[in-house]
């Protein structure tokens, strides 16, 4: 069965400090994994994706994520938070299921950045 769990519903950091948003998944096959960001009143935007190449994936705006198969994790990190990073972040898993490719979104993690 396919599932994705975002371990924190809310994360609060100070500007300039590191960001860690945690995501665990389960998949029957070799999945593709994505992180999307949703700013208020804007559409979802792709931050980065893992597709069985390098396990450390670099995305836009200084974000990166590491695929760890042994831990079934795909945590999102950024060395130094900026005020503009405040948004909702979604971890997404996509893999082959009976009937075709299935994509599931996590419940989301809201990131707050304090000045």
């Amino acid at each position, binding site marked *: 069965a396919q599932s994705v769990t975002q371990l924190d519903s809310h994360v609060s950091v100070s500007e300039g400090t590191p960001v860690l948003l945690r995501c665990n998944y389960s998949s029957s096959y070799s999945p593709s994994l994505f992180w999307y960001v949703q700013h208020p009143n804007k*559409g*979802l935007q792709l931050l980065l994706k893992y597709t069985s190449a390098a396990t450390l994936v670099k995305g836009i705006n200084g974000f990166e994520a590491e695929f760890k198969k042994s831990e079934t994790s795909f945590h999102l990190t950024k060395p130094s938070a900026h005020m503009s990073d405040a948004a909702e972040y979604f971890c997404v898993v*996509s893999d082959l299921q009976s009937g075709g490719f299935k994509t599931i*979104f996590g*419940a*989301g993690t809201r990131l707050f950045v304090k000045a």
Partner: protein
Amino acid sequence: EAGVAQSPRYKIIEKRQSVAFWCNPISGHATLYWYQQILGQGPKLLIQFQNNGVVDDSQLPKDRFSAERLKGVDSTLKIQPAKLEDSAVYLCASSLGRAALNTEAFFGQGTRLTVV
């Protein structure tokens, strides 16, 4: 490049009324998705089209929801009759080519539906 266009942006209706949402995907994108995002939850796929054919509608409540994609371009999603629990943001997304494992989807801003 123009993005995914959706209208209306907001809609308020009474329960048991009907409502329709419209989506215009990015030009040339063969795959179109409709998602429902309830407050505090991640988006849930309702239906996926490949050109004008349905690829996946397993989570679409077919007794009240319907969608079509005539000519493989624009799409409409309809709810009839609406229930209170249909209050959500309805997101349309599109992707280039055949839906595949690692294909990026581009999302519209969504339609926020409130059923009272």
